[in-house]
């Protein structure tokens, strides 16, 4: 176990730069999740940490050791691949032993470590099977077992659950979280699924176009995003954004008018006050529509999605990039005309600069 630090890490393929000066600190024993849309550079960054991609510039340390240009095997990392990457011609035991065997570990020691890992992952009954005779979940456990036996400083997971079905994914998510608690190891986990990120992480790193947009604990990213991208990416269903204009600024309050919500004026309390007339975006999560809210308006509802415990109402209008989503609790339903009365509290809205996408705090 050890902490990981990246200082201005850069990755270039020829003239194209894909990772732009990433600075990151992952503390000892942390479960850090890299999340972002496809092509954001999260897997590339993980592979740079593993040593499978050369770091073009910058510095990388694991447990204080400079590993920027070290061989993958000399970094003290173990990786679990999306495709499992189990050696198909070897049994489960051979797969798990292979790294230690190549490293020259004694046979008795290999057996002890492999048996211990098999016990943790409940693989005892499958040790003589080849990967093709295992289910997806079992294969993933073997891949994790192969990482465990090496007792690495840092575990790396590259979208390990994306090949599993929904039920198994939830099961494995819980197992990996348990394993993290049990081993207390530093783990870095890549996913494009923000639910996985929110449920598993001690720290989430949101990436876009090879840059860190924001890093922090999940709740902080959810409640206090730095920009439009993070606000939209974290949370499911996504945050609603309404284009608006600052009508006036009075006594430290910016009054924003929202044409999409029938021209209501929302007083937003921010310390870095925008100028009157400035174009802004106002963010409001679906669950922040509450019956008793001070701001009241109406939305024309197209579709209601009933998930059992909770329902979501969708309202689309011309010019909307995404439909407005309202979380419905209890028996609240739109009237016969499809119009739904909604309300929200101004304290639950977030304000963003339309031009830069940055949060106005």
């Amino acid at each position, binding site marked *: 176990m050890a902490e990981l630090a990246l200082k201005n890490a850069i990755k270039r393929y020829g003239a194209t730069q894909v990772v732009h000066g990433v600075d990151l600190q992952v503390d000892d024993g942390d479960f850090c999740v890299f999340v972002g849309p496809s092509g954001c550079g999260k897997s590339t960054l993980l592979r740079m940490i593993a040593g499978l991609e050369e770091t073009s510039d910058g510095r990388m340390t694991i447990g204080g050791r400079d590993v920027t240009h070290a061989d*993958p*095997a000399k970094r003290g990392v173990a990786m679990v691949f999306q495709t499992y*990457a189990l050696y198909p011609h070897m049994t489960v035991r051979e797969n798990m032993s292979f*790294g230690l065997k190549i*490293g020259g570990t004694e046979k008795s020691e290999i057996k002890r470590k492999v048996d211990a890992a098999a016990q943790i992952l409940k693989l005892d009954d499958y040790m003589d099977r080849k990967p093709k005779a295992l289910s997806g979940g079992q294969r993933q456990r073997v891949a994790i077992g192969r990482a465990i036996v090496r007792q690495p400083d840092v575990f790396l997971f590259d979208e390990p659950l994306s090949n599993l079905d929904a039920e198994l994914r939830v099961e494995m998510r819980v197992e990996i979280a348990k394993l993290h608690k049990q081993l207390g190891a530093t783990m870095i986990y890549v996913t494009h699924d923000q639910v996985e990120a929110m449920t598993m992480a001690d720290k989430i790193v949101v990436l876009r176009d090879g840059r860190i947009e924001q890093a922090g604990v999940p709740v902080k990213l959810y409640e206090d995003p730095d920009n439009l991208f993070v606000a939209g990416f974290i949370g499911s269903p996504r945050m609603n954004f309404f284009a608006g204009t600052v009508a006036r600024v009075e006594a430290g309050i910016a009054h924003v008018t929202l044409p999409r919500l029938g021209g209501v004026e929302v007083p937003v309390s921010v310390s870095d006050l925008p100028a009157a007339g400035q174009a802004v975006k106002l963010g409001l999560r679906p669950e922040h529509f509450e019956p008793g809210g001070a701001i009241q308006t109406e939305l024309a509802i197209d579709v209601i999605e009933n998930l059992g415990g909770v329902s979501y109402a969708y309202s689309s209008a011309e010019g909307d990039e995404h439909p407005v989503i309202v979380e419905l609790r209890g028996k609240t339903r739109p009237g016969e005309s499809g119009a739904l009365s909604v309300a929200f509290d101004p304290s639950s809205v977030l304000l963003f600069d339309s031009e830069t996408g940055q949060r106005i705090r």
Partner: protein
Amino acid sequence: MSLSETATAHSATSLDWDLIRRRGKSVFAHGIVLGLVGVMLLPLIYMVMMSFKTSTEIAQDPLGLPNTLYWGNYMEALASMGYVRSVINSMGITVSVILVVVFAGAMAAYPLARLENRISRVIVMVMALGLATPNFVTITPIYVIFRDLGLLDSYLGIVLAFAALKLPLAVFFYTSFIAAIPIELEEAARLDNCNNWQVFWHVIRPLLAPVTATLSLFVMIMVWNDFIYPLLLLTDKDKLTVMIAVYKFVGNTGIDPTKLFPAAVLGSIPLLIMFAVFQRKIMAGATAGAVK
């Protein structure tokens, strides 16, 4: 007859016709397949039939079945062709060529399959050209080079010549097969402390088993049946291959069928045995990659 009875009788008749039509189609399809198999096996059957006939029977009825299984032809052929020696030579040369081609081919193909640069693409193209080069084009250069290197009439010479000729095929086979092996396996091996050689030996090589079996069979058939290069490079009668030994029965003025046909059967038997042994692996290789 009531309406329902008429309907039942009608549907029973149409069912019968369906069955007859299906069976008819099946018989027709099987007939075509059997006919094609017969055409392909005809030369083989003719060779075996002729090998058991006496010279009188061959003269009187060249296309008829033998009256008895006359083994005397085999005894004479065995006695005069140096069968055991020539089979050992052929086997030794074939196995050596397969070993060289498999090892050199796989090791050459590994970087070619993985390196994405112009040089590796050019090498793969040159190898493909090697596949397309007609055999007779290489006869003279190989003879001259091997003569100058003092490799004529030696096992090493014939093995190297065959290995050079069959290497493009091996590289071609292995390159496409290795390119389909997920790169993550190699990356996992690198994280497991393997150097390049260990990745190849412990991870890539074992996965090549099915394609190696298929390649070995192709090379085995080509080398075993090859006639030109042993004739060109070998002169010592103790080093001759089985195909040259068979050819000895084709004289300058005529053919002795009572010896040529049994010799041809004897020459083919080891190949057929090896083919039967490898068949399952070969099929696995031929369909490898079709299903995950």
